[in-house]
C-alpha cells in the first residue's frame, strides 16, 4: 500500500477559474438580467407595468407623507385614517392577487 501523504489532500493543480477569461469567453457569458421593478437593477422606466407605474405615482405623492420604511398598504391605510382620501384603485391593486409583489415601495432595496 502506498503511503498516503498529507500533501495528497492539497490540490496541486492550478485553479483555472481564477485566470482571466479571453475575449472569446467573455462573449459567451450569460446575458444580464432584464431590470426588474425593485432592487439594484431597477433603473429605467420602460420595463415596469402600468400598475407599478400607478403605485409609484402614489409613492411619490407628498400629500400622503414619506413612503420609505412602510409598505404601500400601511401608507394607504394611514392616509385614509387621516382623512386624505387616497385613491381606491391603489388599495384594490394592493389587496388583489398581486398584492404581495406590489406592496414594497419604490425605494425598497435601493435606499
Amino acid at each position, binding site marked *: 500500500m502506498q503511503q498516503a501523504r498529507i500533501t495528497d489532500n492539497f490540490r496541486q493543480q492550478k485553479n483555472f477559474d481564477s485566470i482571466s477569461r479571453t475575449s472569446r469567453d467573455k462573449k459567451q457569458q450569460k446575458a444580464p438580467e432584464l431590470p426588474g421593478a425593485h432592487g439594484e437593477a431597477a433603473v429605467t422606466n420602460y420595463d415596469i407595468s402600468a400598475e407599478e407605474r400607478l403605485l409609484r405615482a402614489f409613492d411619490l405623492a407628498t*400629500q400622503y*407623507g*414619506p413612503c*420609505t*420604511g*412602510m409598505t404601500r398598504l400601511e401608507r394607504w391605510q*394611514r392616509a385614509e385614517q387621516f382623512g*386624505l382620501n387616497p385613491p381606491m384603485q391603489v388599495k384594490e391593486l394592493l389587496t388583489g392577487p398581486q398584492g404581495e409583489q406590489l406592496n414594497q415601495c419604490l425605494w425598497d432595496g435601493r435606499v
Partner: protein
Amino acid sequence: MGTLDLERPTPSTGQKYDELLSMPGDMMCAEAAAIPRATCEYTPRGQGFLLGKQRSFDRQYAQLYFSRLLKLRQVVQQQVQAAWPGTPVVKILSVGEDQEVAVIGTLYKDMKLKPSILDEYAKQPGFKQALGGTGFCSDDDSLVLEDEGARMSMRSECAELQPDSVVTGVVLAVRGRAEPGGDFVVSGVLWAGLPEQPQRPLPQEDAYVALVSGLQLANSKADMMQVQLLVDFLTGNLGAAPQQQLAAKVVQLVIAGGSLGQLEALAAANPYSRQQTTDMEPVRDMDLVMTELAAALPVDIMPGPDDPANASLPQQPLHQCLFPGAAPYSSFRRVTNPHAFELGGCLLLGTSGQNIDDMAKYTRGRSRLDLLACCLQWCHLCPTAPDTLTCFPFGADDPFVLQQCPHIMLAANQPEFDTRLLEGPGGASVRLVCVPSFIKTGTLVLVNLRTLQCQPLTFQSNYTSS
C-alpha cells in the same frame, strides 16, 4: 416659589398628648380600630405607549413627523378659522409674496450649539464640547417652518414666537407674509391649545394620589432610613392617628421613575465574580421596598432616565424578573413612561421627566413648570422627540399627541417641587406638578383628588446639629 396653593395638613385635635404619648394599656382595647384604606377605581389609559413584540427600528423619523403634523393640523386649523377668519390657510409651496396668509407646519429651531453627530467627524473639537451639556441656546438661533412639501425660514415680529421660548417639533400656525428675500415675516402665531377635558365626577371625600420619584436606590448616597420612613408612612406604620388617617386616604402610589438609577458597580464587575452578587444588592433592596408597598396599597412603577429599561421613549415597563417579591401582587403594576391612567374619573398623565429636562436645555428663561404648561398648550407631550430625545420610530401614529386634557399632569425627577393650577378654555383646569427627586429633597407629593390641591411631605432622617 412664591405662594403655592398647597393644602395644609389637618390641624391636630387639640389634645396635649396623642395616643403615642399616653399610658399603654388603655389603647389596647377596641378603640384602636383598624382604619380601612380608601379605594378608587383604576382604569389604565396608556395603551398607546405599549409597544408590541415586533419592533422594527429601520423606519425613518420622517414618518413620525408626518403623523404628528396630520394629527395636529386639524386641531390647529379650527383655531385658525376661529381666530383669523379672513386669512386663507395655504401650504408652504403656495405662499406668495403679495398677501397675508396663514401656514400650518412643524417648527424647527436651528441652533448652532446643538450637539450634532457630525461633530464627531470634525477635525477640530471647537467650543461646543467645552460648553458641556448645560444649555444649547445662543442668540442667533433661527426658526424654520416645515410641512410635508417644503420648508421656509421665518423672521418673527411677534412676541409669542421667539426662539428662546420654543422648541423643535411643535405644530403651529403662523400668519404673515413672505418677504422678497425669502423669509416669512410672522405677525401672529397660534398653537394647538389644550385638548378637550372630560368632566370628572367629584368624589365625596378626600382621596389622595401619592407621587414620588428618584429614589435612586443604586446610588451610594441613597439614605435608606429616608426611604424606610416613606414606606412606613404609606403603609400606616408612622405617626399617630392623624397621620394614619391621612395615609389611609392615599388610594394610589405612583413611583415616577428613577427608583433604581444606574448600577455603576455592575458595569465594571466581572460577570463571573462573586462581587456581582453584592453589586446587585440595590435591585434586591428595590424589590423589598416594592413588596412592602405593594402589600399595603396599589403601586404603579414607571421606568426613569437611568433605570434598567429601554432608553428611547416610550420606555417599556420594567421587567418582572427585577421584582420577584412584588410581582405576584395584583396591586403592583409595572407601567410605561409616559403613563396615563384614570382614578375614579380623574385623568392623570405623567412622565419621568425626560421630556421636560430635554426642553429645558433648548429654551431659555422658562421654568420647568412653564415648560409643562407649554406641553399642554402645544398639545404634545414631548415635542423634542425624536430630534434630541430618542424615540421609537412610529409609522402610522404619534402616541405623544394629547387626545384629552388630563386633570393632573406631572413631570418627575425635577430639581425642586413646584405646582400650579392651569385654567384652560371651556372650564378645564389642570393641576401641574413637578415632582422632585427623592434622593435630593426627600419629598413625597400628595394630590387631593377632590380639590386638586397638593400637599408635599418631606421626610428627613439627618439630624445634624444646626
